[in-house]
């Protein structure tokens, strides 16, 4: 039915099966869109946020998708600037994942703000001293970069590529992609960092505040670093999931091993920096403001030291080591464990840097504030996930995303699974 659009030589499931799958996920999207419309038309009273929890589930989701979407810029940086050529076999997919993550992030922001129709004031009336301004500018620009990086892949669709202009455009864009990637890396560095800065500059919040370099608190650098470190984990994880669902091998092991190794070393170095930062904050910064760190992890029913331990050791040190060591890295099961832990780790870090900050009382007579998101918040947070699944399914079906797919699957006629 749609065979004219499917890449030449690739095997895809039957269209009805594909359509049913999309419809199921599409229902989830509709649920999310309904919640989104509620938030837009009735206002943010649809959420369970409150004046203590001005930042809540959405901002966590926002930070988390941007962190895991960091695989796009880091892989691009390695491929185009550091000329790690093997990564060309996964860069398309990394870009698509990045595109999904960043478009989701922008959508979430558009729902999160109280006056969406005035959202553009952040650009128009920019306060250049605000980390959030930096986030908005770099995020939007980098999304433009991702779109530019995504376009050639779209134009390589069998039908689109037949149009000479599109063919040439894709070709030319490939030619100058290094410049775009460099700009993207520059922008990414700043917006990943400034997202970290958002927390680090809040000097009214002893749990969040960090000392730093010039105007940038240490969280600035930690966020960039962690996004570069854990982003590839997410790329690998989504690749693995896609491979499992399609029942096909899509990327050669050597490429996966290489990216896993780079990620491992990045995680390892990041976690050392994070541990140093945590120790300095716990021993110097917070006590200097009158806070013993036990204040941040006690007297409430949820946040305990377990969260610190999980983030740093279980989801930081362990995946780092697993990916550094050749034997564990090349063991598919352990590698999978490592990348899953890694993705959880970075998401947990973003959780802590958004929700735990809001939960902790600062005034001595204030109390812990815990909150449970409303269904509207959950639905709008699930929305990007569903949208991402659809976009991956569509691009996988119609675009030559994995250059090695044909080679890896030419031996036998592949089973027709989606």
């Amino acid at each position, binding site marked *: 039915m749609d065979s004219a659009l499917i890449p030449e030589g690739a095997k895809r499931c039957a269209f009805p099966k594909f359509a049913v799958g999309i419809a199921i996920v599409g229902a989830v999207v509709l649920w999310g869109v309904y919640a989104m419309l509620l938030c837009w038309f009735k206002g943010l009273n649809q959420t369970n946020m409150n004046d203590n929890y001005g930042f809540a589930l959405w901002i966590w989701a926002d930070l988390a998708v941007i962190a895991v979407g960091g695989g796009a810029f880091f892989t691009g940086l390695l491929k185009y600037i550091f000329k790690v050529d093997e990564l060309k076999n996964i860069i398309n997919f990394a870009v698509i994942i990045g595109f999904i993550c960043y478009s989701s992030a922008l959508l979430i922001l558009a729902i999160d703000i109280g006056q969406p*129709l*005035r959202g*553009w004031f952040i650009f128009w009336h920019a306060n250049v001293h605000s980390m959030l301004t930096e986030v908005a500018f770099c995020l939007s620009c980098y999304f433009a970069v991702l779109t530019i990086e995504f376009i050639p892949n779209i134009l390589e669709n069998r039908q689109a590529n037949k149009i000479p202009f599109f063919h040439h455009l894709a070709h030319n864009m490939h030619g100058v992609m290094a410049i775009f990637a460099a700009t993207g890396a520059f922008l990414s560095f700043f917006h990943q960092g400034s997202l970290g800065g958002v927390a680090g500059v809040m000097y009214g919040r002893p749990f969040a505040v960090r000392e730093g370099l010039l105007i940038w608190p240490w969280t600035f650098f930690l966020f960039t670093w962690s996004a570069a470190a854990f982003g590839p984990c997410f790329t690998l994880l989504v690749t693995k999931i896609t491979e499992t669902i399609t029942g096909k091998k899509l990327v050669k092991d050597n490429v996966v091993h290489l990216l896993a190794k780079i990620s491992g070393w990045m995680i390892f170095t990041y976690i050392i920096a994070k541990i140093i930062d945590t120790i300095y904050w716990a021993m110097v910064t917070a006590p200097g403001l009158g806070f013993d760190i036990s204040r941040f992890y006690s007297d409430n029913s949820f946040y305990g030291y377990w969260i610190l331990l999980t983030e740093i050791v279980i989801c930081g040190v362990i995946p780092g080591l697993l990916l550094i060591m050749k034997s564990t890295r090349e063991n598919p099961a352990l590698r999978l464990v490592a990348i899953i832990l890694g993705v959880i780790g970075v998401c947990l870090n973003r959780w802590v840097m958004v929700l735990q900050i809001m939960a902790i009382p600062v005034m001595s007579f204030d109390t812990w504030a815990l909150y449970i998101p409303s269904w509207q918040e959950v639905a709008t947070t699930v929305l990007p996930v569903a949208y991402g699944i659809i976009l991956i399914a569509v691009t996988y079906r119609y675009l030559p995303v994995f250059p090695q797919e044909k080679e890896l699957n030419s031996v036998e006629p592949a089973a027709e699974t989606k």
Partner: protein
Amino acid sequence: MKVDRRSFLGLGLGAVAGFSVSPVLLKLTDDSSIWTQNWPWTPVPVDGEVSYENSVCSLCPGSCGISVRKIDDRPVKIEGLDEYPINNGGACLHGISGLQYLYDPARVKSPLKKNGDKFEEISWDDAISVIAGKLNDIRTAGSPEKFVCIADKDRGSVPELFKRFLKTFGSSNFYTMPGFESYLKLTAEAMHGKGMTIGFDLENSDFVLSFGAGIIEGWGSPVSCFKANASRKEREAKLYQIEPRLSNTAAGADKWLPIKPGTEADLALGICSFILKHNLYAATAAVRFKGGLNKFAAQLQNDYSLSKTSEITGIKESEIEEIATLFAKAKMPIAVFGKGKGDASQSLKEFIAVQTLNCLMDNINKKGGVFIQPVKTYLEFPEETLDDVAKEGNEKPRLGQYVHDLFEKINTSSQPVVDTLFVYQSNPCYALHDTKTIKQAVGKIPFVVSFSSFLDETAKEADIILPVHTFIERLEDVPSGAGLSKTVVGLSKPVVKPVFNTKLPGDILLLLAKALDGTVAENFAWESYDECLETVAKNIWDSLFQDGYAILEEGVPEESVEVNVAFLTGNPSSIQATGDGELMLIPIDNMRLPSAAPAASPFSIKTVSDEVLKGRDTVVEINPKTAKGLKNYDYVALTTPVGTAKVMIHLNEGIMPGVVGMVKGLGHSFDNKYVSNKGVNINELIGPVIEPGSGLDAAFGVKAKISKA
């Protein structure tokens, strides 16, 4: 085909690109944001010329001067009036919220007549003629005493007009709701003679011993008390607070002495006993006591030894000794009575016992002491002319001494004892103990007329509601009382034209009187209430009109006062709470919640802590020791002999173990969603306990049980 599709595509893309670079998008973006800045459903207040008008607040007995800021003819803000002799600039939250009463969703917008379960609007003429017809029937039937009136207070021209109306009609059944002022008069009358009243010179006293008086909880004239309290710091005056719970007054006091609920009178007598025993009383005091002090002293030594007092009250002997000594040694000590706001149920024994302390120190009619003097009158009404029906009716005995007796009588009599009831600006169906029986009694009365601004619990039971102006729309004299050291009459002025089809209560009475048979009408010969007020208040009218107030009495009174403690020597027993629960439920007076009428405003409800009201639930206080595993905001069923309520728990270290504290002023059930249907009315859980000797409802609490709900 191919070419077509391509050109179509190109055209489409071109159109999109063209649209994107055209100013249309930019303009739409800009316009949409401007729209959000001017949403038509967000009100834009109209600007205009600013002016200020002075008036007097009559929401509570405090009678503070207020300044109303207006934009053209719209009042927009109420503030305390600078230089006003009572509050000098300050204001309480209810006064400041005053404008919310003006536009209250529960206001009665025009006269209403009950038809079945519903109210229907009627015209003023119809309302007056229906009521007059009913009243004429009573007179024709020869039982004018079956016409009864309940008002919020008994001073001022409007209560006087009601009394006059009743008297010329032929009934002596005029009742007021329990209030601090009436208790002051009652106490003064029992101890110092008829027509006397009591005021406290708190701002000049150096030691205040308060027996549960919520000096900063709305007791007396609230703002005046706040000021006296605040100046303690500079004056180095002390405040010792005796009550079972760490109220705000207790928290602000120099010392808080937790006492077993209901034993305040015993403590006061114990202190008297100690002072007498150790000859710490003023030498000049003895001569004032009628019949001398010896017999009284002997009786106290016997009944109130230190150890016995300590046992009864739960206060250590050393502490009783300490406060007695401090009180006696102070230059100008005052002992004050009237638990909480001083209104609602109180015990005369307690008042007299505490006042005896003042008398023993002989701080009577001295600066910084207690002022005892005759109630100042300022209104001169022409002599009534009574016809035979009226004369006969006035001869008949009153149905009861106090308002609760009246309802008791209605409920217990097999014959209808009341034919027509006027309720003026008070809410007995909410504010009296055991509201269920009150409502039952009101239900038994054939014809009930409510003079009210709001469709409150009592108005809802009425057959006809006559809507009256709110205080801000009114012309009226507002005499102060409430235990102040001076007597000021303020003039409430209409600062805004009536918002709804309402009238002045005085004007309504004039209309009614004119429609009545007999000599009633000729006793109300004024053209209007305005004319009436100017005539009857002629002695102070100039000052009232020009300054907005007139001071009737200021400074230290010169009266020499006798002291009579006969009530105490009669050896009355102290009040015991009813019920058999192991806990004692006591009411809490909270400054941010009016305990009776009018109900809270949306603003004042908004300020109420979530340790008092949570969602739709009342939160009661108990000591963690009493909690037995209950946690904050656990639901419990609170059961008393009178009723059961589902409430939440708040653990408070500031309340005595074994005591449950529940706020007054919640649990309203009228049509104002911001204020009503929130929490429980404590009066549904407490029943009246009549004090022997005084006949007062003196219930200070009730025994209760809690069980996890």
